[in-house]
């Protein structure tokens, strides 16, 4: 951690940063929280470990909205976050020169929703890491789990744990966890009958309270006016009626097609542990297979949904 802090101080000076977006210790066990610091003096607050779930690229878009997109901003970036930054630059959200990507090696992050589910309503006061095992301590109980049981599903399927594009990289690059193949959950799900699949989505999305935590946690959702808020015309109802809710999730997934980096921020943000990722992952698979495109790997390749190639498959049109 000291290495991180020292290096950040250097970067602040060398790059003349005006803002750095990173993580600091949260108020709950196994939680980190984003922090925006404007001076190297505050670098001592920074941490990076497996509790750093949030996708910080989200704040780059905010930075732009606040009218500060001329500021030189540094961002601590896991592999997925860095890909989000690249994708945002390709989408013209800010200039490449104005963002300094500081890559850090990621071996997966804890999904707070998964933790809550494992604890079945209880809360912990402390934890201890022993290699691949984590022991959770609460008032009057103890629970030992494998690390992978708490990591976000996105991490378990991650192919790019380290920033592919970066200005700096602090630490030794991490190996992909390789616990599951990227699309295993989607492939398994596709084996189900349409009725079974519909029943699953109905069950999941009935829980949705339309808080939009998933949308707001996502760096790719930066529209000035989201389609759910548009009143002329009113695309969907604003209450928690199931058909309106499902349309919201479907359309959001379509809007992020080819842009999603599967950072898992949406699923982690959901207070009700809804399986937000299933639809998005299926669409991501479609984009990868159809167009051979993965979001955020380099600054040259045009995003799949923003370009047309004569060789694109069109069998659905004919």
């Amino acid at each position: 951690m000291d290495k991180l802090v020292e290096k950040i101080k250097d970067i602040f000076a060398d790059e003349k940063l005006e803002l750095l977006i990173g993580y600091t210790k949260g108020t709950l066990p196994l939680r980190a929280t984003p922090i925006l610091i404007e001076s190297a003096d505050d670098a001592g607050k920074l941490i990076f470990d497996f509790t750093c779930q949030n996708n910080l690229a989200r704040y780059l878009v905010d930075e732009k909205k606040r009218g500060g997109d001329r500021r030189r901003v540094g961002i601590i970036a896991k592999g997925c976050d860095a890909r989000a930054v690249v994708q945002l630059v390709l989408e013209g959200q800010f200039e490449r020169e104005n963002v300094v990507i500081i890559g850090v090696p990621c071996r997966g992050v804890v999904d707070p929703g998964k933790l809550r589910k494992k604890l079945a309503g209880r809360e912990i006061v402390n934890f201890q890491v022993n290699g691949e095992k984590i022991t959770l301590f609460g008032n009057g109980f103890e629970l030992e789990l494998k690390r992978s049981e708490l990591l976000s599903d996105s991490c378990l399927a991650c192919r790019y744990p380290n920033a592919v594009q970066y200005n700096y990289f602090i630490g030794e690059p991490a190996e992909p966890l390789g616990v599951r193949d990227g699309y295993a959950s989607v492939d398994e799900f596709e084996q189900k009958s349409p009725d079974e699949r519909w029943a699953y989505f109905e069950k999941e999305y009935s829980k949705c309270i339309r808080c939009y935590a998933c949308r707001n946690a996502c760096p790719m959702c930066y529209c000035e006016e989201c389609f759910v808020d548009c009143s002329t015309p009113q695309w969907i109802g604003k209450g928690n009626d199931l058909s309106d809710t499902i349309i919201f999730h479907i359309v959001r997934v379509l809007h992020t097609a080819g842009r999603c980096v599967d950072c898992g921020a949406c699923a982690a943000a959901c207070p009700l542990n809804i399986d937000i990722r299933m639809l998005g992952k299926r669409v991501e698979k479609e984009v990868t297979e159809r167009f051979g495109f993965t979001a955020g790997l380099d600054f040259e390749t045009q995003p799949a949904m923003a370009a047309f190639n004569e060789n694109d498959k069109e069998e659905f049109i004919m």
Partner: protein
Amino acid sequence: MEMDTYKLQKGNLERFLQKLGEKFVVHAPVESDGVVAFSELMPGQESALYFPRTHKPPKDVFYPQTEVMFHYEKDITHSAEYKGKPIALFGARPCDAKSFVLLERVFIDPKYEDPYWAARRNNALVFSLACNDPLPSCFCNWLDGGPFSNTGSDVLVTDIGDAYLFEPISENGESFLSSVDMLKKATKKDIEKAQNAKERAELSMGEPPKLDSLKVSLDALWDDPLWDKVSSKCLGCAACTYSCPTCYCFDIQDESRRGKGVRIRLWDSCMFPLFTKEGSGHNPRPTRKYRLRQRFMHKFSYFVEKQGEFGCVGCGRCVSFCPVNIDIRNFIIGVFQTAQGKGGEQ
């Protein structure tokens, strides 16, 4: 009038709830796929009373997220208030029970009565379940509450191991309990057990900070940079608002088709950018800082002015659910520290 405490062996709970279901529609915590929320208890369905704090508060039992106010066809409107059996809410925690007292002050005032709230709330019975094991994120004791508080309850239920004690708090609670044969009178030993559980629970929560000067401190910090700091990481979603037992802001929308339709009331959040956006395009709360400041000021200053108490029951759901770990407890401490740092006139 001193009302005796009753006792119910745990094995009889289902029968008790059935009896309750004769006169009332019973809402209790129900678990579905790991998520626990209040819903109508179906025959044979088990209630998830073991769950320390439900994901969703029972707010939507009396104040549904989406509620039809009236149906209309051309000029004719039919008001659609709840007309079912009175509601019995079983297993709300003391923080949730208190929230109804606070919400009532908003929905029912001398000038205007909200008929949709009133239709569900009136004649309802609230059985609150005391918290033997408060969670680390619970802070009801900061806000004049407690794990065994009976504010807002008709009956306070305590789990003493093999049985439940039912302590009537209101006349309606007593009236129902005295009509149920399967209840016995609690013994002195039972009551002692409950008292011990209460002390243990209260002790486990530690000493709360005094919030007496919170409103005054907050009012003085309107232009302070602390708002920029807290709001800088806020996502502007409604995870806090919708999981909060005392947040009540709503929207009214019409949904229609060919001259017929409904006007519905639905939950809204002051954290959303469109909340105050006017038709002209002007928005008096243009950034997240303004909106976060509005939410916290409303809870800890404006609500005090209008309704006499803080608009927060310290349930801790927002602490647990905020995707970026904005912790309202830290915010409160931060306000005191900032106020002190400014010369401590408080």
